[in-house]
Every structure is written in structure tokens, then in C-alpha cells.
């Protein structure tokens, strides 16, 4: 990855809160990351860590009445701050420049409209094509996502398709306007293992063909290893580690990341392929977050400092390169040890 490459999406200090019956919770807390053109960025973490809220914050798909995106949050896309953009501006971006697909292909499509109609709708909003042009394009997209008997499918309804085919339709809809970014929120979680692999392959291929950046959200590190360039690990609403996939897999810095990696089922144990990674202990409730590190209760390396002070997300560039944004960890005692202390001194968080 060339350092000169500019990010197409810059998320800075994204903080998303919800008003609930029990008070306000912060589901996503000061999350910052970049998405570079054409890359695949993975966001991983256990269920409930804020992956979906992060992606829906970017697309502004959260319920307006109960969601508060902190006004200091910045989600910069082509000079627009999506965190504070109005609906009109968001509509122009949604489906056209940034598209999204979801976890449940069985319910994501509208059951009472044909596949063709639902593809046509997206094209109608974002292109000047006339109706026959749109139909041609819709067919082209179904062929692109390798839909068997594409022509016939245009006039079929979602219930006539299998889960895998519906997810292909979702991908076709998402990519029909050639977006810059495709956010895929657990796109294969609900699918069978073999179909999962096919869908991932398809996304890989299309990313290259259309030069679309993909933000792939998953709790499955196996999926990350297969397709991602970089990965962000989230825990209880925070980023706790980020870096190139190779680095994360070979030298995880955060004890949580390592625990996640250890919970990946070994190949050959296919039966466990869909199980959620299990790590001992439970994620703290967003209502009772500890003062120090959020992972402290489950961490085998816990020290007094972990209980007293929450660690900052700091650079741990392999070469110790200052300001390299690509390798970060939020831990007082990163597993590789060496690179952390100078960074901490440099930023001077220590009391």
C-alpha cells in the first residue's frame, strides 16, 4: 500500500449514542479509521461490540429519534461530513456512492416487488437511464453476480430465490450504480458455509472489476483472513486494535485479538464453521463500563493500571514509525512489548 494513497472515507471520533429506557448508552465510542479506494477493510468483534452501529452511522440509517451522533464526530466523504449531512445529501450518497448490504438476505428484499423492480428502483434514483436502459442494466448486474437464469429472475419475487441467490441480488442492487464503497454487514453470516465462500469470492471478484472499496463487517476472522487487506478489531464500542491483516494474524498486539484468533476453528473442523468465536467471560454491559480497560475482566495479563486507566489507541508501527496510522493498539501492555512504551511516552498520557 503506497503511503501517498488518500483515503476516500475518513471517520474521526465517531461516537454514537442511543436514548433508551435505562438512559443513554454509548454504543460506538470515539471510533476513527480510514477507508482507502479499492481496499477491503475488515471490522471484526464479538456480537454487540458496535459494528453494525458504526456502519449504520456512516449511512445514517439509525432511527433518528433515539440516535445521537455526537456533533464532534466527523465522517468525511468527498468533502461532506456525513455525520451532520442533511437527508437530501445523504440520499444522493446512499446507494450511489456508498452502498450497503445486510446480514439477513431472507428479509432484506421487499417481498411484494419483483427482483427487477427492486434493481430498477436503485437505478431510477441515481441514473438517467430510461426504463429499457434500466432493465438492460439490471439484467447485466444479475449476470455480473452470476445469477443463474438471470433473465427469468427479473420477474421473480424474493421468495422464489434461495438465501444465497437473494444475497447475490442484494449485491447486484448495491453495486448497480458502481459505488465507491460497499459496506457489507455480516453478508455471509446467515448463509451455509459453501454458499458463504461463493459469496465472498464473488465480492472479491467484483471489487477488483469495479474498483469498489469494501468495508466487510464480520465476527468471523476466517472470513477476514480470506478477503481483507486491513482489519479493525472492536470491543465494547471501541477500536482496540487495527492493522494490516498479515500483521494482525501473525503478531496480534491486544490480548483480545489473540483470544479471537485462537477461537478460530481449525480447518478440518468444518462443523464449527458457523459457531461464534468463544472467549471466556462476557462483554461488559454498555451501562456498566469499567473505568479502565474495557477488556480487563477477561484479560489474563491484567495489572493495576488496566483497572485504573483506560488505555489510549496508540501507534505501534512495526518500525516504530511515528504517525503511521495503519497499526494501532489500545493496550497498556501490548503483547510484543517493545514498541508500546516509547509511543506512550511520546504522547504523554501517563500521569
Amino acid at each position: 500500500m503506497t503511503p501517498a494513497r488518500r483515503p476516500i472515507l475518513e471517520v474521526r471520533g465517531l461516537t454514537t449514542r442511543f436514548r433508551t429506557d435505562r438512559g443513554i448508552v454509548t454504543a460506538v465510542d470515539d471510533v476513527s479509521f480510514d477507508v482507502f479506494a479499492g481496499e477491503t477493510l475488515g471490522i471484526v468483534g464479538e456480537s454487540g461490540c458496535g459494528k453494525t452501529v458504526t456502519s449504520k452511522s456512516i449511512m445514517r440509517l439509525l432511527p433518528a429519534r433515539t440516535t445521537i451522533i455526537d456533533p464532534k464526530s466527523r465522517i468525511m466523504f468527498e468533502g461532506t461530513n456525513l455525520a451532520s449531512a442533511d437527508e437530501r445529501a445523504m440520499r444522493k450518497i446512499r446507494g450511489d456512492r456508498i452502498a450497503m448490504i445486510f446480514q439477513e438476505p431472507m428479509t432484506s428484499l421487499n417481498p411484494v416487488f419483483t427482483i427487477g423492480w427492486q434493481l430498477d428502483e436503485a437505478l431510477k434514483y441515481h441514473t438517467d437511464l430510461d426504463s429499457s436502459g434500466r432493465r438492460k442494466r439490471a439484467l447485466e448486474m444479475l449476470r455480473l453476480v452470476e445469477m443463474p437464469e438471470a433473465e427469468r429472475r427479473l420477474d421473480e419475487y424474493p421468495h422464489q430465490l434461495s438465501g444465497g441467490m437473494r444475497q447475490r441480488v442484494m449485491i447486484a442492487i448495491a453495486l448497480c450504480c458502481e459505488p465507491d464503497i460497499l459496506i457489507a454487514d455480516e453478508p455471509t453470516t446467515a448463509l451455509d458455509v459453501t454458499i458463504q465462500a461463493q459469496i465472498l469470492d464473488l465480492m472479491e471478484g467484483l471489487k477488483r472489476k469495479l474498483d469498489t472499496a469494501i468495508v466487510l463487517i464480520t465476527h468471523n476472522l476466517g472470513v477476514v483472513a480470506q478477503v481483507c487487506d486491513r482489519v479493525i478489531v472492536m470491543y465494547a464500542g471501541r477500536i482496540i486494535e487495527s492493522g494490516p491483516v498479515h500483521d494482525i494474524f501473525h503478531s496480534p498486539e491486544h490480548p483480545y485479538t489473540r483470544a479471537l484468533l485462537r477461537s478460530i476453528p481449525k480447518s478440518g473442523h468444518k462443523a464449527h464453521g458457523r459457531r461464534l468465536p468463544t472467549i471466556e467471560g462476557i462483554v461488559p454491559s454498555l451501562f456498566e463500563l469499567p473505568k479502565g480497560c474495557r477488556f480487563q475482566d477477561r484479560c489474563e495479563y491484567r495489572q493495576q493500571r488496566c483497572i485504573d486507566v483506560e488505555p489510549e489507541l496508540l501507534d505501534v508501527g512495526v518500525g516504530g514509525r511515528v504517525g503511521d496510522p495503519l497499526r494501532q493498539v489500545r493496550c497498556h501492555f501490548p503483547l510484543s512489548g517493545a514498541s508500546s512504551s516509547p509511543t506512550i511516552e511520546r504522547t504523554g498520557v501517563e500521569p
Partner: protein
Amino acid sequence: MWPYIARKLLYNIPVYLGIILIVMACLRVNDPVTAYIGKNASEEQKQALRTSMGLDEPFALQYGRFLLKVVTLDFSERSWELKRPVGSILASSVVPSLSITIPALILTTLIAITISLCAAYVRGSLTDRVLMFGAVLGMSISLLVYVVLGQYFGAYWPKQNLGIGVFAIEGYRPITLSSLNNWVTYCMLPVIITVVLTIGYDTRFYRAVIVEEATRDYVTTAIAKGATKPKVMFVHVLKNAMIPVITHVMITLPFLVTGSIVMETYFNIPGMGRTLITAINSKDFPVIQAFTAVFAAIFIVTNILTDVLYALVDPRVRLS
């Protein structure tokens, strides 16, 4: 679609035969003739009445005869009380009933769907809460209050104080194409009252349906595609919400024909509801038997119609 309708019709034939069987049997448990002319009538009188209706024949034969008459729409038997053919009683009472119930149903449904869509569109807002409060309030007031107030302010008061008699509450005159103003005079006020009476319940029901639809995943997908909020509500959500809406409307459809008994009674309108009640009170056997057969047919036809409408709206129904 046609094979589907044919299949539905076929399934319902035994159902209808069963209903007629039960109705006819029930009506004969107590001797209808004695019930009508009383214990003191002479045996000859009773026998004459019995023969005229074929009541002295074996039940199986009566059943077959009656079915044949229903199928051929032959309602030539005379009412014991009114001495007119049952068919003509049916024909003359169906128009007044429909003149109230059809406009009332159409208006209620359209208004209720519009209000509930608007309320669901701004759900949680003050407007939504005010609308729903109004709906609950409207539902909680007794029907009699609406009738009394409606008759007073709609008919009595304007006539007494302004000398305008637009609406009348009695003296129904038939509505024909050349006298459509009779509809305004005799039917419009009952229609308005019926709409006011039912709108609260319907609005709440439709709003609940629409709000629930609005939380579905496909709504998020539509917004993620770039759809505007009106597009989402009035295209994506509405078409899905039509499924429960149709059920709700269809359940009330038979009452279109059976008529609004209450309104017909309070406004002295000779509709089907009132005619049947009168017939029951006077033990007018031929009318009761014919009306129940017709009502049963109407229920079955509306059921089939409901299924057909489902199939039109919901593609998932079509294949199964």
C-alpha cells in the same frame, strides 16, 4: 389466477351445502308452522301452510328442492307475513342497505388509511399522538351518542332553527337513478355517523399495521438504496401493509349486505338487516330461510374474494 379461483370455489361448495343443511335442520326443530300461526289454529290451516311450503315432504326432498331454488336464484315463495315473493323482498331491501354500507365502508377505509399513513409517517410526534388520542376518544364514545347527536344536529336542529331539512330520519323513499337526491336525504346522515363511529378503530388498527411494517429490514434496504421517506412509506410499506388491510376490510364485507341493523333501525330504513330482524320477530319462515341462505352465500363469496385479493397483492400466496 382463474384456476386458483375455480379451486377456491370448488372447495367451498361442500361448505355451503353443509351450511344450508344445518340452517334448514335448525329451522325445522320446532315446527315453523305452529310457531307462526300459533297453537290455536286449526289443523287444516296448519296443513295448508305446510303444503304450500312443502314442509310435509321428506327432509331430503326439501333439501334438494331448496338447493335447486338457491342455485337457480328462484325465490318465488311468498312471505307468510307480507304475502310478497321473498325474491322481491330481498331485492327491495338490498338497495337501501348497500346505499349506506358501501359509501360508509369506502369512506372509512380511505380516510382511515390516509390518517394512519400520516400518523405512522410522523410516528412518535405530537401530531401522531393527537391523532391517536382522537381515535381512542372516538372509539370510546357510545354508538347511541353519535346517533342521538347526529340526528339532533344533523336533522332536527337545522330544520327547527334554519328551516333547512337536508337530512331526514324517517319516511324513507326508494332511491332510483332519477331521484338520487333521496340518497342525500335519507342515507347521507347514517353514512356520516357510521364513518365517525368506525374510523377511530380502523385508524388505530391500520396505524399499528403500518408502523410494524416500517420496522422491517426491507425498509432499511430501501433507504440504503436512496429512497425518500414518502417513497418508503407510500410504496414499500403500503403495499406490504395492504395484506392485513385487505383482511380487515374483507371481514367487514358481509355486513355490507346484511346491512347496518342499527342505522336501519334508528333511521327507519327498510334494509336487509331490519327486514331480517322483522322476519325473525314475526316467525316469517320463508323469509328467514331464504335470507340465511343468501347471507351464507355472501360470506363464502367474500371469503373467496379475500383470497383472490391476497393473491393479487402478495406474490407469496400465488404459488402455494
